[in-house]
């Protein structure tokens, strides 16, 4: 059992930073997975990623003005999400609109950094994450905002699923398709901004897209898919945190230098996705080679 002892050293559980990271990471992973299922279903991955990058600029701007970085992050994220929805009604135009808004926001970020030189290290922390340094006091507000996002998602659940799978039929049935889309993208922005504040921009995208996209290959039913995504997200996060902790003891290639946790979690997210794609029980059972994202997982809605 020496390898197990090496993987899970006893001092792991006594380390307050690690236990806090495990808790915060699990909350971020569950909220991201639930939001991410609809992000993947609606083809919003670019917007989901861009919103966090844009929030980065907002955080920088807020610090410059002497405000709390969290509020700058949230404001920029929500504004960006609304802008993407407003400017990009159709998928192709949304792609370009997202790109232009993202470029503009990154430019603003460069400008804020130029003005506030004392802030130079901050973008690295925001971008690559510092889950081990996550402030324990941030856990309750994070959990609260996450719970609020999940509650909005629960209310939106049926109309949102209907609109995502079959927008024309939903519109014909009187579902306010644009309003539902706007509400969802704003909810997503709030959830993603919250996660990015704690685990970093990079990990928030990894946790938003990776588990949900993997779950789509493993089950065709939306409710089960969200549950599978949440479970995968929590497992990827915990495995990444444990491996990052272990890496402090690794002697190759340089000893005494921990590997970043964002490396482990992002690579795990990609690996699990590729594995799920390879396994692909959904497609095999139905004898088709389409991902379930284009398959209607909600046939009774159309009956």
């Amino acid at each position: 059992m020496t390898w197990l002892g090496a993987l899970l050293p006893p001092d792991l559980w006594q380390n307050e930073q690690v236990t806090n990271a495990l808790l915060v990471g699990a909350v971020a992973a569950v909220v991201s997975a639930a939001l991410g299922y609809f992000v993947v279903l609606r083809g919003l991955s670019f917007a989901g990623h861009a919103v966090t990058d844009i929030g980065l600029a907002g955080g920088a701007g807020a610090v410059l003005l002497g405000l709390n970085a969290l509020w700058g992050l949230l404001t920029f994220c929500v504004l960006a999400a609304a802008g993407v929805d407003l400017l990009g009604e159709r998928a192709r135009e949304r792609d370009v609109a997202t790109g232009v808004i993202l470029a503009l926001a990154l430019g603003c970020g460069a400008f804020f950094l130029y003005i506030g030189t004392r802030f130079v290290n901050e973008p690295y922390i925001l971008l690559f994450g510092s889950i081990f340094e996550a402030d324990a006091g941030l856990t309750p507000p994070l959990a609260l905002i996450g719970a609020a996002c999940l509650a909005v998602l629960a209310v939106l659940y049926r109309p949102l699923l209907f609109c995502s799978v079959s927008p024309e039929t939903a519109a014909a049935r009187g579902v306010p398709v644009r309003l539902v889309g706007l509400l969802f993208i704003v909810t997503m922005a709030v959830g993603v901004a919250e996660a990015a504040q704690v685990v970093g921009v990079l990990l928030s995208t990894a946790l938003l897209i990776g588990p949900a996209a993997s779950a789509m290959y493993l089950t065709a039913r939306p409710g089960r898919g969200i549950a599978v995504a949440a479970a995968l997200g929590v497992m990827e996060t915990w495995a990444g945190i444990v491996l990052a902790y272990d890496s402090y003891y690794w002697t190759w290639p340089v000893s005494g230098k921990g590997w970043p946790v964002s490396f482990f979690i992002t690579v795990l997210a990609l690996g699990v996705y590729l594995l799920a794609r390879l396994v692909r029980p959904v497609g095999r059972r139905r004898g088709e080679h389409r991902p379930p994202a284009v398959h209607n997982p909600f046939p009774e809605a159309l009956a």
Partner: protein
Amino acid sequence: MDALFTQAYMQNALLTGTIVAVLAGLVGFFVVLRGVSFATHALAQMGFAGAAGAVLIGVDPLWGLLVFAVGGALGLGLLGAREHGRDAITALLLVAALGTGALFLTLNSSYATAAFTLLFGTIVGISREQVWLTAALALGCLAALAALYRPLLLATVNPELAAARGVPLRLVGVLFLVVVGATAAATVPTVGALLIFSLVVGPAGAAVHLARRPLTAMLLAGAFGLLATWAGIVVAYNTGWPVGFLISAAVGLLYLAARLADGRLTRPTQGARSTAATSIDGRPAGTAPAR
């Protein structure tokens, strides 16, 4: 104002900016038409991770950039070509590459400021050799784009017809992404991952709203890019503000102005006036959920 054109470093900046803006505009036309802005963003960032890795093992960052950007393009093309959830795999490859880049940066702590330059770009401090290198790489990208032009255009605006004519859709798509990756690799060392992205997506996004023919749109995109770049460099020279911010702001304004001029800021109508928009209307852009 005279010093702007006589100082060697400003000449280098203007020359590089010109090359990059034209290349980005021409490539950007197809990026916008094919809806691969996210892939472009991802490829530029992947190049950044590759450069960090190259420095770690002690080779020229350009090789790392090329390997990661072109390898990323191949990976995206092969994994995402037939998938409707293409942007999901783009996001995952992007974060995995950036995570790897974070690892490289951690293992090699001396690299942080250079990494910052690769992200945000510095248009001053470009040597004459770099100008020639950028020019040579840009010529290679343009030659590849010219060779791909006709099949790529047909495959983009009417994939069914292209397939019927025997155009290998998948191969053309992968080759185009490789050109985008090579463009990113050629331009990231001088202008930064952020700036090349604004120059690829913004001017072309504006141009397809105004032009009715593909060649006009490409030329217009190149012209918009040039305008934004020159204005950005001149203002940066006079104010000392970061050139990345100025150019992306100019590009954003151009895009908004073009959309306003096209008269459909919020509501794209059926029967849109620009050729580029109508020609792909019948095709789901890869992200629309199908029934």
